[in-house]
């Protein structure tokens, strides 16, 4: 599979490396030339020597998208640090370049859920964190036998009002 990843931050670069290791063809697009260094981390050889591609530019520039190979991409991942950028460029990949599989990283749960309803495939790390934290806290609350008192409450704690 040929995968284009826009945004080579922590998320984008880790995903890109993992896909490359799985044997896929991977092309990264980032406006910051320095972000290239992050792609090399943990690789025995450099990103390019390992078979990866890197293009400097943004997901709104037709030339940069073309250089990154979006026209023949099987999958497109929008993983920049901007929610709105990810929402817009993933729609461009879908509607203009007809990429079959498009997914956008969106931190804001409200925007993520609305665009998901509109047919855009979204991943919301914030939603995932909220759900996991909720589950953890609920589980902890269950262990206190539901008496609601802090730390099992034997009444001997240093309560300034007590």
């Amino acid at each position, binding site marked *: 599979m040929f995968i284009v990843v826009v945004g080579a931050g922590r998320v984008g670069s880790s995903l890109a490396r993992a896909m490359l290791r799985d044997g896929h063809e991977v092309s990264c697009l980032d406006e910051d030339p320095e972000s290239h260094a992050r792609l090399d981390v943990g690789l025995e050889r450099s990103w390019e020597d390992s078979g990866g591609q890197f293009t400097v530019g943004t997901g*709104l520039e037709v030339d940069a998208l073309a250089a990154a190979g979006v026209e023949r991409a099987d999958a497109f991942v929008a993983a920049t640090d901007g929610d*709105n950028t990810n929402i*817009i460029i993933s*729609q*461009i990949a879908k*509607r203009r370049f007809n990429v079959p599989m498009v997914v956008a990283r969106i931190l*804001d749960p*409200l*925007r993520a859920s*609305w665009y998901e309803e509109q047919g855009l495939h979204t991943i919301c790390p914030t939603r995932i964190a909220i759900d996991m934290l909720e589950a953890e806290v609920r589980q902890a609350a269950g262990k206190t036998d539901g008496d609601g008192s802090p730390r099992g409450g034997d009444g001997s704690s240093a309560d300034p009002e007590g």
Partner: protein
Amino acid sequence: MPESMYVIVVGAGKVGWNLGRELLDKGHEVTLIEADRDRYLTVEQELEHNVQYGDASELWVLERAGISRADLVIAVTGDDEDNMLICQVAKEKYLVDRIIARVNNPRNREWFDLLGVRPHVSATDLILRLIEHEVPEYGLIHLLDLPEERLEIIEMLLSDESPVAGRRVGDLDLPEGSLLISVLREGRGFVPGPDTVLEPGDEILAVLDPGVEEDLKRFFGPDGTQGAIASSQ
């Protein structure tokens, strides 16, 4: 324009602030939304409760501003992605009747169109158009483009070598899908009749179907070469 509208203006930069003030003066109800705290505090000193602090690409900020009852949403931030997103949700999620978006980088115009964010306004494009108008050698000037209605109005200056200079309008076999609607001569405009003789220096106005532009350019030969050669063959 209705007597009084509820208008949400996103981005209280120079454009948004002035726009907000003008709309208030005209008697409209206005809410400006600004994401930069310092800028918000500055604008708030003048516009008071008409400006709210927040990032309008967060949906709850738009809802707090009452987007569901807005007649018009105008997105004029300095960020094209933000302007596109805000107008897209205004139109498709909150069913706002009218939106206007600012295009900062004219190369992004294609994406505004792709996402159905229209109309959009680009200061850069407006200035480029003015330059075209001030420098007629540039050839053909677009006075009006209505892509949805499939209609254009263009203006062209006839050079000394134009193959139509000295010819009667009635004798011209204009390209199909075009119509000569006006001639500007020595600062005055008139509607040409069949007996009107075109002169070098005339500016002609024509209405045309999209795609006829190149034919028309050749026909009137703005650079005085293509047209002359074509007509002598």
